């Protein structure tokens, strides 16, 4: 009996083991591929990132912090935070609304709406900026009327905020849409039959189910809003201390041969990006956990 039992174990090894054996490559190939990937990352990512921080601290820590006492630099940081602070919440509202409408309802022009949401991804940021110049600029469509009423949009803060909103608006909607579509209407319908109002259904059922996707979209949206250069550059007019965001300010400092100051501000943006990456991977891990739980709940339907 014992012999036959051990034989059957040998005949049927754990399925996971078989799968890795069958799809695996020799060790040499694996090491080569890993090394190539690491080399590529090193040359194109780690070295430039190292250079940013190295140059930033070239004249010492004191000089590094002195950079941030410059009023123009402080103004640039403030403007970047302002633009992101306005663009991100607005795009959360827009993205949630758009994803909800597209995911839950059938209507005419749905395909067109999905395409339009993707537009900022496919259009060059410079063109995005130009759109606003053509609309609100001096020679633009609405320019003369705006000037007559003393409203400044181009070469002013509103233009920068508008351009930032435009280039970042696909992020939240794009992250939410697949999630909302995958979940279907059942839970919402259940909530309605239980007497919940539309708002209650949204805040108690729909939103909690997509919260990780939403947070992920917000992080990406925020990263792009703070780092945007092209579109903002076109509408900004580069007025120091007034319409310079951090990326624009870095360019100006660099062109003024203030390399250390430029890299110091750049290091701040880079730190921001690293922070975003950390938060992003935490959120990914969390939403992965949620996804796993969902798969488990769909797969295990035993009595």
């Amino acid at each position: 009996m014992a012999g036959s039992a051990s034989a059957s174990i040998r005949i049927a090894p754990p399925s996971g083991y078989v799968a890795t054996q069958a799809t695996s490559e020799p060790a040499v190939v694996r090491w080569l591929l890993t090394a190539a990937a690491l080399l590529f990352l090193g040359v194109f990512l780690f070295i430039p990132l190292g250079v940013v921080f190295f140059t930033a601290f070239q004249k010492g820590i004191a000089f590094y912090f002195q950079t941030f006492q410059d009023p123009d630099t402080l103004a640039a940081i403030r403007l970047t935070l302002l633009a992101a602070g306005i663009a991100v919440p607005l795009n959360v509202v827009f993205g949630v609304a758009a994803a909800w409408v597209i995911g839950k309802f059938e209507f005419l022009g749905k395909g067109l709406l999905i395409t339009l949401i993707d537009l900022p991804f496919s259009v060059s940021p410079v063109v995005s900026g130009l759109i606003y110049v053509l609309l609100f600029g001096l020679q633009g469509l609405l320019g003369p009327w705006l000037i007559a009423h003393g409203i400044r949009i181009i070469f002013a803060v509103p233009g920068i905020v508008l351009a930032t909103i435009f280039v970042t608006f696909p992020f939240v909607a794009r992250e939410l849409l697949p999630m909302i579509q995958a979940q279907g209407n059942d839970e919402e319908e259940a909530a309605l039959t239980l007497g919940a109002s539309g708002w209650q259904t949204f805040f108690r059922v729909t939103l909690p189910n997509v919260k990780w996707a939403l947070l992920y979209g917000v992080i990406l949206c925020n990263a792009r809003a703070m780092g945007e250069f092209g579109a903002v550059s076109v509408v900004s007019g580069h007025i120091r201390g007034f319409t310079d965001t951090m990326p624009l300010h870095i360019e100006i400092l660099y062109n003024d041969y203030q390399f250390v100051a430029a890299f110091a501000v750049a290091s701040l943006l880079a730190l921001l990006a690293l922070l975003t990456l950390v938060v992003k991977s935490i959120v990914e891990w969390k939403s992965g956990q949620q996804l796993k739980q969902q798969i488990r709940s769909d797969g295990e339907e035993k009595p």
Partner: protein
Amino acid sequence: MSISVRNITKTFGHFTALKNIDLEIPAGQLVALLGPSGCGKTTLLRIIAGLEFADAGTIQFDGQDITDQVARERRVGFVFQHYALFRHLTVFENIAFGLRVRPRSARPSKEEIRARVHELLRLIQLENQAGRYPSQLSGGQRQRVALARALAVQPKVLLLDEPFGALDAKVRQELRRWLRQLHDEVHITSVFVTHDQEEALEVADRVAVMNQGRIEQFDSPDEVYNHPASSFVYNFLGNVNLFHGRVDDGTTYIDESASGHLLFVRPHLLEIAREASGPTYFRATTKHINSAGPLVKVEAVTEWGAPVHVELSQERFQALHLVKDEAVFIIPKDIAVFEKNGDS
């Protein structure tokens, strides 16, 4: 609470899902909507729930017109095929949901909610699972939670859309007996949709057999099974053999060249014999014999080349010493005759 469905019609684009449906469901009964997929049964249930709206016709609860009320005003309990539990809430919070979303003036106190939820957890025998999430429960447990959630708001009627459709056979049987028991305790007017005739006949007080957007028959399980109103109902409720035939002077003849009547015979109402007897019989050759199970299933080919299924008892099978590829006579014990028309 009685439900009156009057003259309901519903179309989706060019597809007519329901045609002039009339249905009177008496208070306190458990009614099954039975039919093949695409017959409109789920659409009818969703219209009763207020999740879908009819193009024409009215719905009344206890004589009161509620056609224009939306789902949340109708106070129905709805149970979905795939449970539709709130995955981010515990079992306790799922069941409490309907009470918690009430406007402040109508909302029970925290203690009342706790008491009500625990009462329901006792009813569905999941008292010690209150803190678990839906993903940690089995399919049968989830559907019981869904049922408790629907009952928590004390609905006027309970509507169930293929409630056992996603469960495996054994759990399905357990749960439908449990539903029957529950209904005997709670006595709430209930309607459930199913495509499983066995389920409908076993659980329901009355069965509405539906086909292509119409109700073919609405009767007790005994009536629909033993006195089917149409060839469709006879055909749908169990296995049948279909023959063509004619009726002369009150006697039925199986005649493949005739076209006036359709004759249905259930497999267990066919007799296999070595000698001919009576006015109605035909010759056949046995092709396949399956003797595993309480009944022996014989597949044979008739003299005109059509397949025929016969079920006979183990005793009769032993007595006949039946083997494969043997020429026999088949004698129908009871034939259901329907005049040929468009609906079959």
